[in-house]
């Protein structure tokens, strides 16, 4: 019980693919019926457990349902069937700098973004210096963020998100940003989180990243779970399947 951070239990998620969608009143009235759609199964009956303190990689080709699963984990989508249970506070980093206001300064945006991600004002004040130091934008912290370079923007967003310090962190492919120095900083931060016994779930297309960071992995293909377990065999079977196909 206590050694499981997240339990994914028979999760199925489908989307409606609209052929003709009634998004305007006119079409709704003219057609006089519900929109025409087909269900598309993005996730089919996926179940696995993520152990506490692990760094868990989700791998698979494009369109395999990784991002959908991640959004379900992050409470943005609700699964149609099955359930996802979190044991601890969860935070998701699917995009950095969501909710930044361009005219406001970096300082104001740290508070704004932090509270969107669920931090209290007190917490942000406490971690403020750390966030600024991590982002490396000290000099420009009182400038409006619209004047930031895209790298600075992303670094600030990432610094806020990583300092939420949840028990479980869900990360989409956001690591591919920033220069080498910043990326190293990020990996170091992930290792620190791991050392502190926190769980990280990440999606990546880079097998190198997954190999070097993750101890567990799950492989998804067309919405189905192909393999789950220790990182190495899972990655190996995924890579094998690729070389067979192509």
């Amino acid at each position: 019980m206590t050694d499981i951070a997240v339990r994914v239990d028979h999760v199925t998620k489908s989307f409606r693919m609209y052929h003709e969608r009634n998004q305007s009143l006119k079409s709704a009235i003219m057609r006089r019926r519900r929109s025409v759609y087909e269900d598309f199964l993005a996730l089919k009956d996926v179940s696995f457990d993520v152990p506490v303190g692990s760094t868990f990689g989700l791998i698979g080709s494009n369109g395999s349902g990784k991002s959908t699963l991640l959004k379900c984990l992050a409470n943005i989508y609700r699964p149609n069937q099955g359930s996802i249970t979190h044991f601890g506070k969860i935070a998701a980093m699917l995009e950095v700098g969501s909710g930044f206001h361009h005219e406001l300064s970096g300082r104001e945006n740290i508070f704004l973004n932090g509270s969107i991600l669920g931090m209290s004002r007190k917490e942000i004040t406490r971690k403020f210096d750390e966030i600024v130091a991590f982002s490396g934008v000290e000099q420009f912290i009182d400038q409006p963020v619209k004047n930031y370079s895209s790298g600075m923007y992303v670094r600030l967003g990432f610094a806020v998100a990583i300092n939420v310090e949840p028990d479980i962190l869900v990360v989409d492919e956001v690591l591919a940003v920033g220069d080498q120095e910043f990326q190293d900083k990020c990996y170091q931060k992930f290792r620190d989180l791991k050392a502190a016994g926190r769980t990280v779930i990440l999606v990546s297309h880079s097998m190198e990243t997954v190999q070097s960071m993750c101890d567990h992995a799950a492989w998804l293909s067309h919405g189905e779970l192909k393999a789950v377990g220790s990182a190495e065999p899972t990655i190996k079977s995924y890579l094998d399947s690729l070389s067979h196909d192509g």
Partner: protein
Amino acid sequence: MKYLNEVWSSRELLFNLVSREVRGKYKRTIFGQLWSLVNPLALMLIYTFVFGLIFRSNPPPGDPSGLDVFPLWLLCGLLPWIFFSTVVSTSAGSLVANAGLIQKVAFSRIVLPLSTVGSTAYNWAFEMAVLLIAIVVAGGFVWPWIPLLIVAMALLAVFAAGIGLLFSIFTVYFRDTQYLLGILLQFWIYLTPIIYPISLVSNESAKHGGLLGTPVTLLGIYDLNPMVHFVAIFRELIYDNRWPDPAEWLICVIWAAAAAGFGMLVFRKNEPKLAEAL
């Protein structure tokens, strides 16, 4: 109840979003916050010219305040109306405008429409303060009525929030709502005694009596508009300086509670589906 708790726990986020709106809005303008006065002043000039001077709508003087200034009489109804219509139209678009955020971060979505209520209320409070000063200069005695005025403002804010929540959900499913809403609000302002006194309606109604042989009068139908009662309360408090009819208070409380209750119910039911629907 549980839902109210969840909303309450996001108050800090709500506060931050409101201050984002307030601080971001007039950035890089020379006159800053003064701009929020320009719109009501421009409308005041237009309506005073057309309805005060040309059509001579001649509202009765304030009783017992004795005020007889058309622009002030107008603003007592117009400022609450501008607040209401701004809240409804901006919160209607708030979910669509923040689609990116909704699809990427999990948080209590209700703060998005509610934050527009907060930021609009901030401007409104500023406008009302200026109006009160003008009324005092003109000879009105408003000071004892300020606490009640704040209660009335809060009631209208709750009512507007409820309507705004409803329209924010409609707009997600039917993007036409935002355009339809503009027309609806146009009708609505002329169906509310803001630029003409309600006595014109009651006189007309008395002339016709019961419509088509029923006891339903023109005024009875007209009174179904909740804004009629809100405007009446504001006029009585600020312009007439007297205690508003308790029946009016009751009607406003009922409308506010009904709108907020229904709005929250609809919002809550649709909240989990928003990320996909947008």
